[in-house]
């Protein structure tokens, strides 16, 4: 039993070790500059991860921007507003959203969302918001913005179901206390529930971020896979995860392969840190939960 339990440590250590070992070549060649250079030229053997870091951050943050308000809305609706009968079905449906495999999101994205972006949403955005400079340039349907939309749909269920659990962990006496002071329902939610669970909610959001950072298939299929840094959200881009998926099996040459593995190593470390912080935050809130609340 102990051996099996320790295998969890072993797995993490092992992944780290093998990634460091195999990215040795690129680590030695580029050092820390790898993460600040924007060159990505397999032919010349010149590699830098900046465009992918940009793509990952841009898509993840945009996805959070779209997903967080919606997820909070769902959590508030499910825990505080909706009739008891609807509570279970709605939670179930949002969790189904989490069960859909990434590749199916990608398929749907390619054949439904991309044409929609190209023909309807994109032109509308560039007409109304074109002056901001974020929606300029040719719109192919694939690109940063489309990837962000898909990502936001994918991380929504994680954020909303965790937020729901955290909000349910707030004791009812708290709600009753605020209501008894004459608060409206929203004031009760804001003062009594949200304020008490904010650390946990931030944790839930960070867990969503962790998922968004590492999401691969759906993003690869709709982001356009081009390593550039552009202000326009219509521009095709690439993320850390999607460049690995797209180029790993075609990588010729040891340096190319090792550069891709180094990107994987970076992704591994970043997601571990983000997840660790997020877990600690969620634990801090739900540990004292009343029995049977979650």
């Amino acid at each position: 039993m102990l051996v099996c339990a320790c295998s969890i440590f072993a797995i993490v250590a092992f992944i780290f070790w093998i990634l460091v070992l195999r990215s040795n070549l690129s680590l030695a060649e580029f050092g820390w500059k790898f993460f600040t250079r924007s060159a990505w030229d397999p032919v010349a053997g010149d590699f830098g991860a900046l465009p992918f870091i940009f793509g990952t951050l841009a898509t993840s943050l945009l996805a959070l921007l779209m997903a967080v308000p919606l997820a909070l809305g769902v959590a508030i609706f499910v825990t505080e507003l909706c009739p008891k009968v609807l509570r279970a079905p709605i939670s179930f449906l949002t969790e189904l959203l989490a069960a859909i495999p990434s590749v199916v999101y990608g398929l749907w994205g390619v054949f439904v969302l991309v044409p929609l972006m190209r023909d309807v949403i994109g032109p509308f955005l560039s007409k109304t918001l074109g002056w901001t400079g974020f929606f300029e340039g040719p719109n192919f349907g694939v690109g940063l913005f489309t990837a962000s939309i898909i990502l936001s749909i994918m991380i929504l269920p994680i954020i909303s179901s965790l937020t729901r659990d955290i909000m349910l962990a707030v004791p009812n006496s708290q709600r009753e206390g605020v209501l008894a002071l004459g608060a409206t329902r929203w004031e009760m939610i804001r003062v009594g529930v949200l304020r008490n669970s904010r650390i946990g909610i931030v944790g839930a959001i960070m867990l969503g971020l962790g998922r968004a950072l590492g999401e691969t298939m759906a993003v690869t299929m709709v982001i356009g896979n081009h390593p550039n840094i552009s202000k326009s959200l219509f521009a095709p881009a690439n993320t850390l995860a999607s460049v690995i998926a797209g180029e790993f099996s075609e990588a010729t040459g040891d340096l190319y392969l090792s550069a891709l593995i180094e990107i994987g190593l970076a992704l591994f470390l970043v997601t571990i840190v983000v997840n660790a912080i997020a877990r600690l935050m969620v634990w801090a809130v739900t540990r004292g939960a009343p029995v049977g609340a979650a």
Partner: protein
Amino acid sequence: MSTQPIPIPPARPGPMNLQSRGMRINTARRTITNHIVSGLAILATLVVLAPLAAILFYLVYKGASSLNLAFFTHVPAPVGETGGGMANSILGSGVILFVASLMGIPVGIAAGVYLAEFGRGKMLANAMRFTADVLNGVPSIVMGIAIYSLVVMPQKHFSALAGGIVLAIMMIPTVTRTTEEMLSTVPRAIREAALGLGVPKWRTVLSVSLRTASPGIITGCMLAFARVAGETAPLLFTAFGNQFWSFKLNEPIAALPLQIFVYAISPYDEWHRLAWAGSLVLIVLIMVSVTLVRIYANRGVLKGGS
């Protein structure tokens, strides 16, 4: 969800007390805010459920017409020919998942048993629990390249075994955590009764705790299974995919999610059709297992423990 306070108009001379007027307006503002927020929450829920409905609708609409006997019995047709199926992918997924379950589930359950029965309150167990949760969040593509470096590179060829190992590693944290949670719902009194009869600890764990919690543990395994069944990214560089029948663990093997990916990004309409059909099959499999788990969990078998 910021709220615009309605400006309070300047006081006008009149019989009405200024303060009560302000209070009344304040109350009105609070009520309106309350309604607006409630409305927004309902709207958010609808917006969230819309993509789910859209995805399911498209899957059925585009996929159902392509599902026929050939889909389940034939290998993919060469480019340009119509027909063909994904039989080898479905079988390949089965092989990979079988290998993964064989390795991942026993290790995961054993780790969960340790956490719940032997490690209660120990620092080491807490650290393990934490690591398992963190491991759960590591992107699957990273797992994929790690196993590629570990298994595929030395062997110099892709293999079903490598695919199975990746998925096994991804199953372990989920299985561990659910096993632990299920075991901790088993009442102490039952354990104490067994121990009181002089049954050794290991026997108590096996015959009493595990048996009591077994429905929940099976549920957890099914959840982990459903989760990895749709994984594509880690299989890209391990199982790799195959256009033909293959049963050997030592050779590249087809997998349903992989095949969907390949077909989806291909330029052929015929392949797109198959991708939709394959997705429909995949999603039905996953949803059925998730729904079963859910129904079972709600039955109170799992809740009954505490």
